[in-house]
């Protein structure tokens, strides 16, 4: 069971000093009740208005590029009625911020946003009450703007938040009455102020975990096995120990060399002699799918309606497909890095992590310390995408610091990063669908192996459906694999949507129906219809049956993720000789409810499209058994500048709905939209990602041979 040690109130108030402090605590709230199911019970948010009128937000969330360092203060400024630049934010520091389960799953805005807004709205109510007392008028006569409360119609009778906060120590918890402002009233939310982390990031002044330097700090390099599952049989560290200044640690499974200079530590590691017993590789990049099918079991039916067997007999066309996708790395450019300083029963840790609080609790256990004495500080995180949740490097740095009595940095090399990543799992989807004579999908029999259920649900109106899921990226799903797997940006949904939305196009092509038309014919979900139509309009989609052939093609794919609806349309050019696929243009339309920061939302959509190119076209981890063959970016190919299409983003307004997720949705239809466009360009249907030039060439050659033979 996770321990949840938030700092207590007294401690917190002492910490922040005077002023007005608003806490959101366990008190049940009608406003929050409906949204808090996915959130820990003891969620706390803190907000403080200081005597100089400045507002500070304390949140356990972290900034890893998704822009919440800017969007959270926007929400606070909006509800509290202060200028955006009067708000500061303190993030991811376990000694100063309230407990938080971690930054992932597009939850920051969706789940945490309403809480934060409620806290700010409550703070506004407190300020109004204080102002009413001070100015001697009823609250209803007051207006507040820019942190100044004044009497309606008498702008000179006023008092600032700062003046109201002076000399006070007010502690409030949010009650049920905090009324949030409506989208139509927004002045700060719905705008795109320049990002608060901009200056830090362009000037080189912003710190990431590895930029923290402590006096006497040692850089550690750790002995790693050549393959997962390998056993150490012989070890000789004597040559390494001879290098002046090197400390050798050999404790249980942890063999490390440390030095004040990182390169000397590298050299020391290269002098450690080790022999290993490597297990026979049971499967590899190509045979993993058979393995998964064999061991995953039948799984669980997650959704079922109608009669799938009867529908199969009745269908005019039946389509049977199997889809594959390999392991994909997170590959943040910042490798996992942690600096730990453990001494006199206390630990202070600077970590590149998406989960500072769970990391703190885990460390306390590992080090045998009271969680109160462990502090995790999260500087800027250089990309996470779900991959910085586990944090082996943090445990190692802390242990080594405890052993040596010195501050220790552990920074993964790129090869370690590829070895210890918690990959997006290889996965398989088996899908049987059917179409009736009117182009209505009558049957959907879906079985996913190893990807999990996110994105597996169908949003088309299909009368006969069965969806079953065997294995996923968490829990026992991990047992299917030889190395670490875990959440990867919209975990599982990339695979599921690739399969589902490819299948729709397979049916459309066979029935000679335009793929947008086929979707609309089977879709009554209004939100999805609107988003699809918005994309079609922005793209300029004209009905036509695929494939067009001749190396140029277009595609469409839809998805729902984290409460957000998205449609992508893409143009591709396929080089029929080289087999390379270039994506020329992507139109992305998205309904994400209320939009907190439009530019920020667009940046996330562009990031999704650009990053998504990788798993579609070039990224697939290669391995033999537990041995990872990709060790750096020379063989594991990330999308580069020349690969990036012209990306046009369309935000479909929906102010009736609270803000939904923005960091993940637009990546989920990437596999299908590109595969569908490649089909349109070549007539070739790809059932496996990525569509590497070799695979495209091979498919083109096979098609050519078949054509020549007939």
């Amino acid at each position: 069971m996770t321990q949840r040690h938030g700092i207590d109130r007294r401690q917190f108030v002492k910490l922040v000093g005077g002023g007005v402090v608003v806490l959101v605590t366990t008190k049940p709230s009608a406003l929050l009740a409906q949204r808090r199911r996915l959130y820990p019970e003891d969620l706390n948010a803190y907000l403080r208005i200081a005597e100089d009128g400045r507002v500070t937000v304390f949140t356990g969330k972290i900034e890893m590029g998704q822009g919440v360092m800017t969007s959270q203060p926007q929400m606070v400024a909006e509800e509290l009625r202060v200028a955006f630049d009067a708000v500061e934010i303190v993030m991811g520091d376990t000694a100063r911020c309230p407990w938080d389960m971690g930054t992932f799953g597009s939850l920051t805005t969706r789940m945490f946003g309403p809480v934060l807004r409620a806290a700010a709205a409550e703070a506004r109510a407190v300020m109004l009450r204080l102002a009413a007392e001070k100015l001697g008028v009823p609250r209803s006569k007051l207006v507040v703007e820019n942190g100044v409360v004044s009497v309606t119609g008498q702008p000179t009778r006023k008092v600032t938040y700062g003046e109201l906060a002076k000399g006070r120590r007010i502690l409030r918890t949010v009650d049920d009455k905090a009324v949030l402002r409506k989208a139509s009233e927004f002045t700060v939310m719905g705008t795109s102020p320049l990002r608060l982390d901009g200056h830090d990031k362009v000037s080189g002044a912003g710190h990431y975990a590895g930029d923290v330097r402590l006096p006497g700090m040692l850089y550690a390099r750790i002995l790693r096995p050549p393959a997962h599952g390998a056993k150490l049989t012989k070890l000789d560290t004597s040559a390494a120990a001879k290098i002046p200044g090197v400390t050798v640690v050999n404790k249980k499974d942890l063999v490390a060399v440390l030095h004040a200079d990182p390169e000397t530590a590298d050299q020391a590691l290269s002098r450690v002699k080790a022999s290993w017993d490597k297990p026979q590789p049971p499967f590899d990049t190509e045979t993993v799918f058979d393995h998964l099918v064999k061991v995953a079991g039948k799984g669980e039916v997650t959704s079922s309606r109608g009669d799938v067997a009867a529908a199969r007999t009745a269908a005019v066309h039946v389509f049977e497909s199997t889809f594959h996708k390999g392991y994909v790395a997170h590959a943040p450019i910042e490798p996992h890095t942690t600096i730990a300083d453990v001494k006199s029963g206390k630990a202070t840790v600077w970590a590149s992590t998406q989960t500072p609080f769970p990391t703190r609790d885990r460390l306390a256990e590992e080090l045998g310390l009271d969680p109160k004495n462990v502090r995790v500080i999260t500087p800027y995180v250089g990309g996470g995408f779900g991959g910085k949740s586990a944090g082996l490097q943090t445990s190692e740095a802390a242990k080594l610091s405890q052993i040596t009595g010195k501050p220790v940095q552990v920074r993964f090399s790129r090869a370690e990063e590829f070895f210890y990543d918690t990959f997006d799992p290889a996965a398989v989807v088996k899908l049987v669908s059917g179409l009736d004579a009117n182009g209505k999908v009558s049957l959907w029999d879906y079985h996913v192996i190893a990807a999990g259920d996110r994105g597996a649900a169908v949003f088309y109106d299909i009368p006969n459906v069965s969806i079953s899921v065997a294995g996923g990226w968490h829990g026992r799903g991990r047992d299917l694999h030889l190395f670490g797997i875990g959440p990867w940006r919209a975990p599982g949904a990339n695979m599921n949507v690739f399969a589902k939305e490819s299948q729709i196009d397979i049916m459309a092509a066979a029935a000679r129906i335009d793929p947008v038309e086929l979707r609309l014919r089977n879709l009554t979900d209004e939100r999805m219809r609107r988003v699809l139509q918005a994309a079609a309009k922005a793209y300029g989609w004209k009905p036509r049956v695929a494939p067009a052939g001749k190396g140029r093609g277009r595609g469409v794919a839809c998805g729902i993720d984290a409460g957000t609806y998205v449609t992508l349309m893409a143009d591709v050019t396929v080089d029929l000789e080289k087999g390379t696929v270039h994506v020329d243009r992507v139109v992305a339309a998205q309904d994400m409810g209320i939009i907190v920061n439009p530019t920020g939302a667009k940046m996330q959509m562009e990031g999704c499209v650009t990053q998504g190119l990788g798993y579609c076209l070039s990224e697939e981890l290669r391995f033999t058994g537990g041995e990872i063959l990709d060790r750096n970016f020379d063989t594991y190919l990330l999308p580069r500048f020349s690969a990036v299409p012209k990306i046009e983003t369309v935000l479909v307004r929906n102010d009736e709905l609270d803000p939904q997720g923005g960091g993940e949705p637009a990546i989920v239809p990437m596999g299908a939209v590109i595969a569908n466009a490649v089909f349109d360009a070549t007539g070739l249907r790809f059932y496996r990602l990525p569509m590497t030039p070799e695979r495209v060439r091979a498919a083109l050659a096979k098609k050519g041979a078949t054509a020549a033979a007939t």
Partner: protein
Amino acid sequence: MKKTIRFRLNGKPTTLETDGDRTLLWVLRTDLGLTGTKYGCGEAICGACTVVVNGEAVRSCSVPVSSVDGAEVVTIEGLTRGGKLHPLQEAFIEHGGFQCGYCTPGMIMNAYAFLRAHPKASREEIVKGMEDNLCRCGAHQRIIAAIEEVAHGAGGAS
């Protein structure tokens, strides 16, 4: 082998007594305390460690510190003069040419050297010039827009 290495670093004369085989990246990040230059791959593939040596973009993870003896070295910290950001830095903020920001110093330094050599570069040339710098967050489109603005708006890097 210790040796004396003299160079100008961000406009300031700098002298080091150190092993000339150490890589420039780690000397910058440790001895000189300039942590804006990042480690990403260690093998001259990603560009996160890019600094400018005698006007050219260099991958500091893959050159010995001895190679900058007598040279003019500029790191991301050196682009900001008297607290004023360089036009490229301004443009990166303005266009949102970063997300996590980890690739950003390398991107900006590469663009800085590139624009010095090709002040009026076309969009296509900029894409080519930036091709070997990796960004995992997918900020590419905005990075190009930022560089383009400096190339065409302000007349190239100064």
